[in-house]
């Protein structure tokens, strides 16, 4: 019977119901999509690190884990020193550039021979390797997002480059150019931002890591597996937890306030109905339960719409921005759903108590 009363009440006020449901859906969508974008970027970055085929990375000692933010401060000659360490099979020095034209993306400046020695080379969709400083190779996702074909001239880092090859995504960056090409932007022909180190035997990673650390004490040597774990475990990244707490708190607050307003308005509108129920012998608990259940039902509808909207938004975003990864996970869908239901319960707490405490005589006289 309560279900019939709740459904009838919601159907009788379609605009209020729709707005409340949409607000909860917005709460769920904001949480799921924003967290999905954060984890998507990190997961995709981790996958591209794994795709390099290297076991170790070597960066400047004070560098950021987000390599785009690191400067090109290491001498390229360090690569030769590393190659002499037992167990090291190949080393590729990478000069890092950040392109902020449209989206923030890393551009790799590298030497094709050492690149091939570490990564095993590109999987080619079309074209060839760059042979001049103004030529670039791009991955298929980047090419798709820019609608670029081999032979096209594209603007990058405020310069025009000719796309000479399109390769399968998944190796470090999305855009690759020669060391000479990258050096043109830094003015440093012999300094790089990161080395990828390929080992003869992946089992010897700890030994080789220690050897590099001893040989090059001013560097930070990272096991790629550790880096991947770091990138895929949000809690390990400094500041990111605070960001995620903020991202979840704001929509949660919106949800609480909207449900509060919605239920508060409802009980004011329905004062007389509450009086009728009280005159029929409905207990305070019955009234509280009725308001709670209505709020929970609105929240549940909002959760369902929110999950649907999240996937729709994911599709829209990745269609408009093909390089953007929105990683919607079941864990965060579950968390967002629980948050939405909790916000419904919190938001309806005071209105339900107010409704239950109304004097039956006064409530019946309410016009």
């Amino acid at each position, binding site marked *: *019977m*309560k279900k*019939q*009363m709740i459904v*009838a*009440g919601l*159907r*009788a006020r379609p605009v209020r119901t729709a707005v409340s449901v949409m607000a909860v859906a917005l709460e769920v969508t904001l949480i799921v999509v924003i967290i999905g974008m954060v984890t998507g970027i990190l997961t995709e970055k981790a996958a591209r690190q794994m795709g390099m085929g290297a076991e170790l990375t070597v960066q400047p000692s004070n560098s950021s884990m987000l390599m785009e933010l690191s400067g090109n401060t290491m001498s390229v000659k360090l690569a030769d020193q590393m190659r002499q360490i037992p167990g090291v099979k190949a080393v590729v020095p990478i000069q890092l550039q950040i392109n902020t034209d449209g989206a923030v993306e890393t551009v790799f400046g590298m030497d094709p021979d050492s690149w091939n020695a570490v990564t095993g080379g590109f999987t080619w969709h079309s074209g060839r390797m760059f042979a001049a400083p103004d030529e670039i190779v791009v991955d298929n996702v980047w090419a798709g997002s820019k609608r670029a074909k081999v032979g096209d001239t594209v603007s990058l880092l405020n310069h025009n480059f000719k796309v000479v090859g399109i390769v399968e995504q998944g190796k470090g960056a999305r855009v690759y150019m020669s060391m000479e090409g990258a050096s043109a932007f830094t003015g440093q022909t012999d300094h790089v931002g990161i080395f990828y180190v390929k080992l003869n035997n992946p089992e010897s990673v700890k030994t080789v890591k220690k050897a590099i650390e001893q040989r090059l004490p001013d560097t930070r040597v990272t096991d790629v597996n550790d880096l991947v774990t770091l990138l895929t475990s949000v809690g390990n990244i400094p500041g990111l937890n605070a960001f995620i707490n903020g991202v979840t708190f704001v929509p949660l607050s919106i949800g609480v306030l909207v449900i509060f307003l919605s239920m508060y308005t409802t009980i004011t509108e329905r004062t*007389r*109905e509450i*009086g*009728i*129920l*009280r*005159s*029929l*012998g*409905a*207990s*305070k608990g*019955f009234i509280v339960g009725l308001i709670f259940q209505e709020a929970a039902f609105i929240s549940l509808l909002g959760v369902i719409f929110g999950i649907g909207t999240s996937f729709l938004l994911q599709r829209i975003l990745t269609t408009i921005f093909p390089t953007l990864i929105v990683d919607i996970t079941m864990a965060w869908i579950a968390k967002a759903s629980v948050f939405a239901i909790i916000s419904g319960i919190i938001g309806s707490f005071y209105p339900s108590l107010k409704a239950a405490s109304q*004097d*039956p*005589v006064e409530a*019946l006289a309410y016009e």
Partner: protein
Amino acid sequence: MKTLLETIGLRKTYKVGKIDVEALRGVSLRVREGELTAVMGPSGCGKSSLMHILGAMTKPTAGKVLIEGSDIGTMNDAELTSVRRERVGFVFQKFNLLPTLTARQNIDVARYIHGATKAHDAYLAEILQLLMIEDKMGRKPSELSGGEQQRVAIARALSCKPAILLADEPTGSLDTRNSEIVLNMFRELNRKFRQTIILVTHNPELVTYTDRLVEMRDGLVVSDNDPWATESELERQPARSV
């Protein structure tokens, strides 16, 4: 006849701003099982306040109200709620049906709150037949005439077999024809089911349908033609209204 409801020296004072308004100034009344009683008086005489107290909607400021021996004045909110649920049925001037529900659902809400069992089903079917609203059950209040709405409200009030039916100006929102229908039904319900009914009204025509008339003025009972009153009770009239 068994006494169902009794008030002794009932007083009710409301605060309107900083002023105390005495709605009831010492009402003593005894209602027996199966009575059809009219409480009549002009607006503001205290009859609605009396009804709210008799229906356990509010507590008296002083005096006693005994429903089947239990004093409402000493009850907490949960106990008052229980009295409303178990022993009292209300019919209001403005029908007070839940507008989003059908007639059937309005009755079912009361049954749900009461925890009605199947034993009540046959009784309800009889009530619906007597009230001639069996075919209106799928309609919402907005799709019913005033008379039909009031009959649904009566069915709702009686659906769980309350000891007392309290009706506050039950014909106040009805035209003459519908008023007659509703009043005849009250009498029929009283005769057929021995339902105790107290009608509160300011309409003198209504009293022709009742067995007993209690008249009120300024918060006091000024006359009571109680046909079952004992000699000692008769002697006390109108002294019962202090």
